[in-house]
């Protein structure tokens, strides 16, 4: 599959539309407590904005804002955030993902639960975004290997 298109309409439209999709994905992640949505949906929206740029732009430009090499390591960081919050509350003497025992000083229980859920959503969103972009990159990578 060859990259890039010479049509200026497609270039302009994808360039204008991509930051708004990314902003809506951030909104979905950070308002996941009290509205529909959450980490998975917000991460999928962020990944779709990055994939839109990758389809539309040329080969030289389309990896400038998210490089191919960052895909798998950032996904591992997202999984580490999720399990880190879970195991911290497990070490502090509660159950797995028991947010009220997180060791943040000077917070009441409701605030601890709020920020604990926020950390979980950020970790899940990061993992979903990077892994979906890595799947897309990996599908295109094998094309070059077979042609040799």
């Amino acid at each position, binding site marked *: *599959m060859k990259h890039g298109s010479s049509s200026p309409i497609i270039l302009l439209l994808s360039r204008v539309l991509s930051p708004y999709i990314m902003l809506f994905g951030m909104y979905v992640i950070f308002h996941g407590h009290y509205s529909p949505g959450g980490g998975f*949906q917000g991460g999928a929206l962020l990944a779709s904005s990055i994939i839109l740029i990758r389809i539309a732009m040329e080969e030289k430009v389309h990896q400038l804002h998210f490089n191919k090499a960052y895909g798998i390591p950032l996904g591992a960081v997202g999984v580490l955030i999720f399990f880190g919050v879970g195991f911290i509350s497990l070490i502090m003497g509660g159950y797995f993902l028991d947010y009220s025992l997180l060791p943040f000083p000077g917070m009441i229980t409701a605030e601890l639960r709020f920020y604990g859920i926020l950390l979980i959503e950020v970790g899940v969103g990061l993992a979903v975004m990077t892994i979906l972009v890595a799947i897309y990159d990996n599908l295109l990578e094998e094309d070059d290997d077979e042609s040799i």
Partner: protein
Amino acid sequence: MHWELEIVLYIFLVISAVVSLHVKDLLTAVVSLSVFSYILAMLFVSMGAIDVGFTEAVVGAGITGVLYVVMIFRTTRRTND
């Protein structure tokens, strides 16, 4: 939602599913599958499952369509052998 509108949505759901199964061109099948997924998301929202409908609209109509199109462009009509 009014029941007349829901019946219209169900009819278009069945039509898009049958079209995506029986059409010869693969790209048309992928576009019809995206239409199916979006109508299904609207039906989920009308039944009160907003979270499920949101996930269906993002993943079914957005990500999997792109991945299917990439895989179709990597296939060839005739074999190289």
